[in-house]
């Protein structure tokens, strides 16, 4: 019998954390938590009230049973940051004010109509009863209506005026921006004008939130080692009295600084630097990131600290989840409601899609400037328009980056590049099973490309950009270059990618067989082992 239950404390924060299931950090966090929970380790997730619902989205979305995880919520979240977020990323799904009022008043209107029908259904026999009732109803109605309207008007008039004015202004701008380029430019300029100020305010607000969070942790869990699954919370790590192990996934902002200009890159790097400096131990997912990014960029801050390379685990084939082609297509077609229209100026609603009738190319990722989605979009365009292949590309990103958006718009690929953002893990599994090919063109990753094992485990071939972490994934297990060379492509040559995609689609069966054989070798190391290594490393750091 265990003396005391083992415990694993995780901090979940983030400026505007991405809760989408495809987000690599979320996937990795959950794939660490799940096996630990199964092994009886008590997992405690520390977060703020601002992040609470996002923790639930991120964890549940990736299959973590929240009842088995303790979520400690500290009331230190910044309301101001949420306001700015709402301003910068307004919800498009919100219904109009009038539609909402109409739907709220619908039951009352139906009741009033029923009463009116009863009153007006008058005959000589019931007229004596109904005429006085009608008069009373009318008088009562008028008085009640007038008084209610007056009181409500007095109370709500200023609010309603402000709301209506802003609503009208936003709607007018939105309508104008679709019709007139000048108005659209004005709208964009007004938003741009506020950006410098916001860029200064946001990091400061987030720093203050982190410091409050650190103080709360110091009060509530002063002796616990806390694991940070990203290095962006440097101010927390700095102020923490207890030890911290920080995962350092990568430093893409430093690798491609011009591509990340305007992405609060300097703030991120500053936070990373603080996290690295004050961490008691560091974890990287690959030797490449450890040597070429962590040590090279933050060398003096790292020296003398334990740095562990813990590769990601691999998805292994789960035969029970395999479905027949018919079932799969039917299940996929039930998910079409998740397709999102990210081109409101081009499309009124998302494209109508019949899964199963074309080769689905899948790239599950959150699109960012280093994700190289444009190369893939160009290759897909080439396959459709020049080679007349029956393909469509599906991206799981919530929204494309500006480059991708411009490319799709200028090439009018809105019907052939689909967006299905933030899908639950079951839907993501379905998409993988229904895909004809998974392509991962990203220029950089922190470690192994888990889209590879995810695809191959369900019998879908995978192609990846020829980048160091992709090679390391195979080399670490001693797999010869001749085996995997054909699965990699030059990330800057979209025509080569198109050739390779065509080859992969034509030779799918043979290719996936080879990849499966490789995955079987790789999969001797799974998520359970990965989670154990995280836990062991944290315990080791705690004990030193």
């Amino acid at each position: 019998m265990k003396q005391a239950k083992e415990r694993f404390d995780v901090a979940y924060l983030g400026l505007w954390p991405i809760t989408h299931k495809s987000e690599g950090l979320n996937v990795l966090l959950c794939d660490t938590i799940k096996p630990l929970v199964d092994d009886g380790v008590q997992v405690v997730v520390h977060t703020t009230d601002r992040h609470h619902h996002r923790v639930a989205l991120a964890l549940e979305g990736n299959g973590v049973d929240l009842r088995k995880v303790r979520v400690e919520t500290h009331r230190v979240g910044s309301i101001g940051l949420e306001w700015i977020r709402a301003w910068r990323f307004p919800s498009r799904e919100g219904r109009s004010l009038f539609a909402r009022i109409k739907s709220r008043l619908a039951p009352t209107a139906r009741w009033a109509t029923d009463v009116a029908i009863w009153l007006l259904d008058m005959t000589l026999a019931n007229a004596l009863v109904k005429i006085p009732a009608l008069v009373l109803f009318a008088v009562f109605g008028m008085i009640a209506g007038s008084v209610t309207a007056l009181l409500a008007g007095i109370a709500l008039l200023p609010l309603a005026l402000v709301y209506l004015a802003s609503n009208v202004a936003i709607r007018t701008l939105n309508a104008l921006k679709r019709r007139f380029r000048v108005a659209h430019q004005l709208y964009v300029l007004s938003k741009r004008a506020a950006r410098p100020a916001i860029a200064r305010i946001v990091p400061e607000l987030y720093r203050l939130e982190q410091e409050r969070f650190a103080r709360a942790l110091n009060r509530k869990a002063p002796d616990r080692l806390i694991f940070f699954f990203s290095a962006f919370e440097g101010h927390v790590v700095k102020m923490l009295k207890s030890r911290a192990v920080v995962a350092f996934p990568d430093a893409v902002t430093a690798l491609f600084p011009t591509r990340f200009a305007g992405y609060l890159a300097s703030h991120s790097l500053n936070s990373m630097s603080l996290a690295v400096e004050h961490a008691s131990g560091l974890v990287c997912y690959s030797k490449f990131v450890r040597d070429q990014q962590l040590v090279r960029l933050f060398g003096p801050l790292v020296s003398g600290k334990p740095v562990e390379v813990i590769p990601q685990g691999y998805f292994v084939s789960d035969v029970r989840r395999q479905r027949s082609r018919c079932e799969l297509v039917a299940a996929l077609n039930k998910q079409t409601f998740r397709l999102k229209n990210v081109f409101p100026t081009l499309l009124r609603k998302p494209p109508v899609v019949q899964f199963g009738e074309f080769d689905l190319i899948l790239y599950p990722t959150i699109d960012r400037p280093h994700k190289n989605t444009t190369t893939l979009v160009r290759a897909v365009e080439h396959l459709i328009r020049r080679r007349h292949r029956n393909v469509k590309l599906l991206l799981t990103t919530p929204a494309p980056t500006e480059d991708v958006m411009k490319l799709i718009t200028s090439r009018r690929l809105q019907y052939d590049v689909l967006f299905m953002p933030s899908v639950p893990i079951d839907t993501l599994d379905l998409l993988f099973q229904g895909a004809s090919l998974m392509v991962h063109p990203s220029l950089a990753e922190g470690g192994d490309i888990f889209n590879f094992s995810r695809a191959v485990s369900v019998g879908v071939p995978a192609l990846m950009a020829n980048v160091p972490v992709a090679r390391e994934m195979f080399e670490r297990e001693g797999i010869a270059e001749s085996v995997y060379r054909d699965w990699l492509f030059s990330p800057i040559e979209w025509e080569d990618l198109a050739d390779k995609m065509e080859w992969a689609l034509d030779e799918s069966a043979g290719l996936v067989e080879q990849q499966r054989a490789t995955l079987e070798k790789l999969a001797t190391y799974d998520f359970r082992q990965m989670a154990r290594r995280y836990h062991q490393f944290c315990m080791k750091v705690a004990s030193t």
Partner: protein
Amino acid sequence: LHIAVILPERYRGGTLRGALNITRMLAIGAAACGQHISLSFGHLDEPGLYTPEDFSELRELGVSVRPFRREFVRGELINDLYQTWLPEHAHSSSPEYVVFNDGISNFEDADFWVLVSDRLQACIPPHRPYAVVVYDYIQRYVPEIFGAPEASDPNWHLYEQYAEVTRRAAFVMCTTEQTRRDCITYVGVPGDQVVVFPMEFDLFEYDASLEKKPVTKDPYILWTTNSTEHKNHLRVIDGLEMYFAKHPDSPLKIIMSGVYTHLFSSQGKSDPHYELDWPRKVREKIRTSTEVKQRLKIIGNVSDAEYSSVLKQASWLLHGALYDNGTFSLIEAAALGVPSISSKYPAIVEECRNFKLQPALFDPYDPKSLEYALVEALPKHAEYRSRLPTRQHLTARNYKSLAPEYWTTFRRSMERLVA
């Protein structure tokens, strides 16, 4: 069974001919299969658009020709009716419906409608079962034809509406596998609702007495085209220029013919479309292509008789489009014994298979490929001529011969897909 074939737009030319042929094939095909059907043909009632002669053959086949006014009715007015008698259709309601008002029954007396083209600015009232005939989705492959990419072009919004009309059809009728695939993949129509019908071809009788004076004394390539961007003029001119630069002694001339091709020369100056972007680019390309410029003669759009005469006297026919649903010009040329040089894309490959055509093919995106095809094919004129399909083979694909097959395909689709 009463079927109404409806031509919802102001179509003449190929689409009108297609609609007439569909009606004729349904009439002849049903009769050949021993089935009695009633047929109506609906067309827009606009002065000067059609003449009674356009439909005389339909009348001889017993088809009722019914002109109509196109009207738009607010959706709620019709949706309210569905609340009581057709609730199952409520889900497919629209803000607006199109009605073909013939002043009699608005074609409600027909059991089934066949819409020749999807070009409808509103949906069909959902109680009406219909099939829609679609030709191609060129914009998927050559998006430029729908306008400048920067602007939020109205063509794309109109396309969304057309696609909605297509998706709501009981089944979709197309004539090539490629268009079928586009219907499914691009428009989103379920695969089992898109049916490929045989492509018919009216083999015209060449009347030697109507033969015109040759447009040039030299041998020539007849380039049939029109003024739209997917016809790929710039690359074709580049390919021709490359060839003629290397073969300056070639006696071949190039005769360009087709709708609005006069915009590519100074003859089109008075046309309001003269300053459009694409004609301007083509004029500029011709101006700077010295070899092509001195060989090219643009005869514009000509009558059928004149076209036959020009085609009959040509050495070769050139077709250089990037993409479409195929072209009858290759078949017409073959019927007159003229071999072709054609761009290669799925519909052309399919057409060549169906009609046993063997043109010299080239990659329309690569001018060098055209140059290579010219180098390869031109010296082998006799050989290409000898490979042309026989007149008997082409006759076997005319509407009369295909009518029974057409009707059988139609009837099976109706039995399978119409409740």
